[in-house]
């Protein structure tokens, strides 16, 4: 990250474990409403980024890094483990990126989780859930209303059409579309 003046959040003072690079700006009162990470550098945003209406929903141990010149509008970033986003990445309106499913798949464990999450569950520990890092490489374009799910790597320059639900890796330069997303060609 470049030295000198750091970027800012228009909604107030940044949490202590957030670094925002030169000339970057975070807009929106709810940006840190669900920010719970206790990592020393939980969120690192590079220089010249515009994060307009982005939700940084970070769990306890989450680590989220974003490169330079990124432009996100109303994206929901759900991070429990690790999300790494490169430079010149665009993320569209109401797109969700998540590195976890938040609940276990096994039915019996979900019963235990429902109890632990309920008003009667105070003090109970929740069963473990699957977390897998998400990586979005440089120059990726992600349209509005898309979802990028756990464990996915989106290769450099890929083009994710609006509304796509990406559940598998996307090779560099590919264009994907649909729910679940399929490769339909190459990015221009």
């Amino acid at each position, binding site marked *: 990250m470049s030295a000198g003046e750091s970027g800012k959040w228009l909604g107030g003072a940044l949490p202590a474990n957030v670094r925002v690079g030169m000339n970057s700006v975070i807009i929106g009162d709810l940006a840190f409403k669900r920010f719970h990470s206790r990592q020393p550098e939980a969120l690192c945003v590079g220089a010249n980024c515009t994060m307009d209406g982005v939700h940084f929903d970070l769990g306890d141990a989450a680590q989220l890094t974003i490169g330079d010149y990124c432009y996100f509008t109303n994206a929901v970033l759900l991070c429990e483990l690790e999300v790494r986003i490169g430079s010149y990445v665009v993320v569209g309106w109401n797109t969700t990126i*998540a590195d976890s499913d938040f609940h276990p*798949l*096994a039915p019996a464990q*979900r019963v235990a989780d*429902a*109890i632990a999450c*309920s008003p009667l569950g105070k003090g109970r520990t929740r069963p473990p*859930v*699957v977390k897998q890092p998400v990586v979005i490489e440089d120059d990726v374009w992600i349209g509005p209303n898309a*979802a990028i799910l756990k464990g996915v790597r989106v290769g450099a320059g890929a083009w994710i059409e609006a509304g796509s639900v990406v559940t598998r890796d996307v090779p560099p330069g590919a264009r994907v579309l649909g729910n679940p997303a399929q490769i339909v060609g190459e990015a221009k």
Partner: protein
Amino acid sequence: MSLPARTLPWDWHEGVIPRNAKIDSTAYVETSFSFRFFRSELDDAIEYGRGASTYLGTMFDVGPRGRVRLGDYALVHGARIICDSEITIGEYALISWNVVLMDTYRLPANASERRRELERVPGRDPRIASGDVVARPVRVERNVWIGFDACILPGVTVGEGSVVGARSVVMTDVPPFTIVAGNPARIIRPMSQQEMNGANAQ
């Protein structure tokens, strides 16, 4: 029913919990805003079981003959419940944010009938489309998990223990203990033996 309409001490919205909503003393309602479009006239219109909870974003868009059931420990994180007949959410069900559960399309499929209904909407308060359309009950059975932004259409039953992937659109019944996903939703796979025994796959 002669329960008084109640307010919630922690509520930011100046509304009430309707008197025909039966909410267990161990259940949690984040805000009365969830009842803004609630207009059921039935005595037992809404029931929350033990430890059930609904959070901000949950909207009971329930018509005069609509009935909604939330089983014990059901967790609704913010769903639009569009109900003119009956929507049941089983025990331990986990319903994620922006999910839509609908038992009716509210508006007629026929364009000229739809026009007539749409012309009535501006005269209503709250402004709600509420045409004479057949409603078909939706059943989300116990231990079901519905991922964020998914949509469950009229007449659908999601069987016990099943999982609906994020953003899915479910148009047909889901068998028990099955994972479905996509638009339209298709079966991904049944739960593995390991998952049925309680262990996660990974």
